[in-house]
């Protein structure tokens, strides 16, 4: 009964919080509307998204978010230094193929977004069978190290979260 | 002090917009031009928020939120046109 009424509790909570942030006030009518949105939108979209992943381990989700934030700030300063001071001739851009162990489309999407949001790396394409992701690096003297870093820092945690 | 910081930040982002415009005008190939237009949207969002602080009005937040929501659609549809020769299939 509960799983029929609330097919995706996390999605419901996220929708309600987003609505409250959008109206920017906490009054009784906005709370009521937020609860209604959280109830009905997951029911409406359930037929179109049949095997929505269950997020296990919320602590790892928070840890992942903090690690990505730290990496964004660190990589930002590194890339800013490269842009300002490194001559174009000594720049070593590289295409890197990162083989994937995760298989669910949602996990691959989150991994690709993380790679792009971290300055210095952009995820460009997915292999036709979905088992590898193509990454472009701004400055990578050692492409294998970048690949291992992506796999160890991001992909291992996403595997814990989504599978 | 915040007045000086605001002036510097607005100047920096406006200069950024001009640099992007230079890339739009001279970009050697078409992906550079799309990229420069996309960066212009991002700089415009930052400028709108700075104006909101400077004028003490919260209207600008609504505007910049709409920009953040729909600003990417033009980029995506232009790219899709280049990739497929068609936007809506």
């Amino acid at each position, binding site marked *: 009964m509960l799983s029929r009424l609330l097919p995706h509790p996390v999605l419901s909570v996220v929708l309600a919080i987003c609505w409250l942030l959008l109206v920017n006030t906490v009054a009784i009518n906005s709370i009521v509307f937020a609860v209604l949105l959280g109830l009905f939108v997951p029911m409406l979209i359930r037929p179109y998204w049949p095997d929505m992943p269950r997020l296990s381990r919320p602590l790892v989700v928070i840890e992942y978010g903090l690690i990505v934030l730290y990496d964004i700030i660190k990589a930002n300063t590194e890339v800013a230094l490269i842009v300002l001071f490194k001559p174009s001739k000594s720049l070593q851009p590289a295409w890197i193929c990162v083989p994937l162990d995760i298989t669910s489309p949602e996990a691959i999407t989150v991994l690709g977004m993380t790679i792009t949001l971290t300055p210095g790396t952009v995820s460009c394409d997915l292999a036709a069978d979905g088992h590898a992701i193509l990454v472009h690096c701004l400055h990578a003297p050692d492409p294998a190290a970048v690949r291992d870093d992506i796999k160890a820092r991001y992909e291992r945690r996403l595997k814990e979260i989504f599978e | 002090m*915040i007045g000086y910081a605001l002036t510097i930040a607005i100047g920096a982002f406006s200069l950024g917009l001009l640099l992007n415009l230079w890339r739009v005008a001279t970009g050697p190939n078409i992906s550079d031009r799309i990229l420069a237009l996309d960066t212009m949207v991002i700089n415009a969002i930052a400028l709108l928020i700075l104006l909101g602080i400077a004028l003490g009005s919260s209207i600008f937040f609504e505007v910049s939120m709409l920009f953040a929501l729909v600003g990417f659609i033009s980029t*995506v549809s232009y790219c899709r046109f280049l990739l497929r020769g068609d936007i809506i299939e």
Partner: protein
Amino acid sequence: MQYDLPLWADIAVSAFLLIAAFFGLVGSYGLIRLPDAMTRLHAPTKATTLGVGGVLIGSMIFVLATEGRFSAHELLISLFLFLTSPITALFIAKVHIHLHERPDTLPEPRDGAGWASYTADGPARGVRDLSPLPETEPDQNT
């Protein structure tokens, strides 16, 4: 213009605005300076994340200090930007791969499956040939 702020808020907002201005300007400068199309794609991600992010944090502290309320719109703006900017980057990269790269200039994925831009639904139905149009004869009548 006069703002009545406590000193700590004044310093914090100014610091965040200056950091944001620096990174936003470096992002736009990188778009001019970097040598080729794929490296230029790296510059705007910086402007998005720390440039706009710094402005948003500064604005949150400013509203908190002047009006004494928590302003949530900034969080939503950064959420939307973080969700949408990877999509534009991916599409621009795909355009670049489609127009300027060949399968043999990219590393090979394992199992030799090929990249999705070239195989799965790659050069698909109705794709236009983007080579320059042939010269047309100028119309004699006009």
